[in-house]
């Protein structure tokens, strides 16, 4: 059985992905990180379909780091789909994006995001942000236990 994916990083910028993963690894916050380059891929992963058919709903990622400006399906759509389905509803999602636009923040919270952070331009700030997000959600936070998702599986399609 493949190791459980700890973080699903949804971001279309390879550079941002690389810098983020580097930070997370440097501080040993996550070992298994899955990258999705667009919203469609993210949904395939989360809903165990397409190229991710072999996945199971029993082992969702501990955290989804979600960028908003994505090709095909954008971040808020992914969030909406996740929150609409019992099997993915409880997965913690942190929006990590360049935009600080009010309407994005408001919509994000309306859709039930757990946290919203802006990607800083300043490198020191950026590192600090990744580090602290990782620290909180991977270490301090109690991720939803397996039962959270097992119970809903019975109702799932």
């Amino acid at each position, binding site marked *: 059985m493949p190791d459980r994916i700890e973080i699903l990083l949804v971001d279309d910028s390879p*550079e941002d992905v690389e*810098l983020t993963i580097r930070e997370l690894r440097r501080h040993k916050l996550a070992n298994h990180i899955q990258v999705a380059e667009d919203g469609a891929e993210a949904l395939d992963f989360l809903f165990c379909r397409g190229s991710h058919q072999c996945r199971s709903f029993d082992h969702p990622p501990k955290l989804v780091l979600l960028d908003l400006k994505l090709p095909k399906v954008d971040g808020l759509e992914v969030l909406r789909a996740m929150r609409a389905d019992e099997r993915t509803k409880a997965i913690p999602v942190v929006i990590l994006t*360049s935009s600080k636009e009010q309407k994005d923040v408001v919509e994000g919270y309306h859709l039930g995001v757990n946290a919203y952070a802006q*990607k800083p331009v*300043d490198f020191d700030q*950026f590192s600090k942000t990744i580090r602290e997000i990782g620290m909180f959600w991977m270490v301090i936070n109690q991720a939803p236990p397996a039962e959270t998702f097992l119970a809903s599986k019975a109702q799932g399609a």
Partner: protein
Amino acid sequence: MTSSSKAIAACALIILLCIGTLSFWGTVQDAKDREWVTHTLLVVEKLQAVRIDITQAETGQRGYMLTGQDRYLELYGAGLNQVRQDMKELPDLTLDNPGEQEATRRLEPLVAARLAELADGIEVRKRSGLLAGVEAVAKGNIGERSMHQIAIQIGEMRQTEAQLLGKRLETAAASTRKMKAVIVCGNALAVLILLAAGFVIHWETGRRGLAEQDLKQANERLERRTAELSETNIELESFAYSVAHDLRAPLRHIAGYSNVVLQDYGPKLDGEGRRYLEKIGDGAQKMGRLVDELLNLSRIGRQELSLHDTSLDKLVRHVVEDLAPECSGREIEWRIGGLSSAECDPVLMKQVFVNLLSNAVKYTRKRERAVIEVGETMQNGVPVIFARDNGVGFEMQYAGKLFGVFQRLHKAPDFEGTGVGLAIVQRIIRKHGGRIWAEAEINKGATFFFTLGSPENNTGTKPELAIRNEVMHAGQN
């Protein structure tokens, strides 16, 4: 109605009033004239009555003298009484004319004499009988003479009255002629003036009609222009936003990777190599800050004002507290006072004070003891808020550039800054319908003044050219 048509109407009104007054006076005058004419005729009639009544008395007397019958005596008696009555009334009638009064007085003895003569005759008859009476009548010369004199006197008086009548009739006619002339001329004048007023009003209405048309056209043009500008404005703002937004990611990468190289390969490089990498990172970082500030500026432009009655005094004190970290280790005297409440957006107004006061703190860095003052004063009856410092100041000849985006009046090594702070302040103040300006002297300090007017209602009907100007200035830098 303009003032000229009002004046004309007033003139016409005055003339009509004058005509009315004159007509009324003329009527009164006319009545008086008629009275006089009547009066004259009365006098003439009275004089005539005197003659008739004397004649009646004569007739009665003669009849009695000839016949001795009582009915002639009665006739004589009636005539006598009548004459006496007439002579009593005559002086009153001639009161108006002293000449006639005099004439009346001359008439009286003549009439009295004649009456006496008549009475004598009656006596003779009574005493001496028929024959004596007939004799007396036959010898009537005395009677004739007296009568003649009376007739002359009365004739004279009648002539005088006739003359008077003639004069008075003449006067009356003249008055009437004058009155007619005045009325005709006055009315003609009034009509002319009213016609003139009519023309003026017509002409002015025509002019006004043209002016209204011009205005309508101008309004339409203005509305079209406003719509265009609003559209352009929205496009520019979203352009500015997406530019700033899309610049962020690459900047993050430049800063990020140069730092990564420094971290992972730093030890392998020499001092110069590391310094170059740092420069890359710094450059990206600085650009990132500029982008953030530009985004801030653009956002303020798009934001709607959320007005509340705000205590500026409290707001400023909060800002001073927030600035405490920047002021650590420095001696700064804050003088805050006289600030009243204002209707404004508290979040944006806080930004104004943050920018102004952090500038004050920054530019007083070289002073041992910085003095920063915030207060309110009155200029031309309008409240003006000011922020003053005793820092390095700036040259007034460059004051026009102060609020331009990216415009700086000091070299970067001396005082850091992006040059957008004051542009943001100006934006916010303008949004509130106010004005901002500054006065300064090199090494004496600077004072920034601003007013808060009546705020714009952000329904998009007011075109904001400000951001376009600011973006253009950015290009010039």
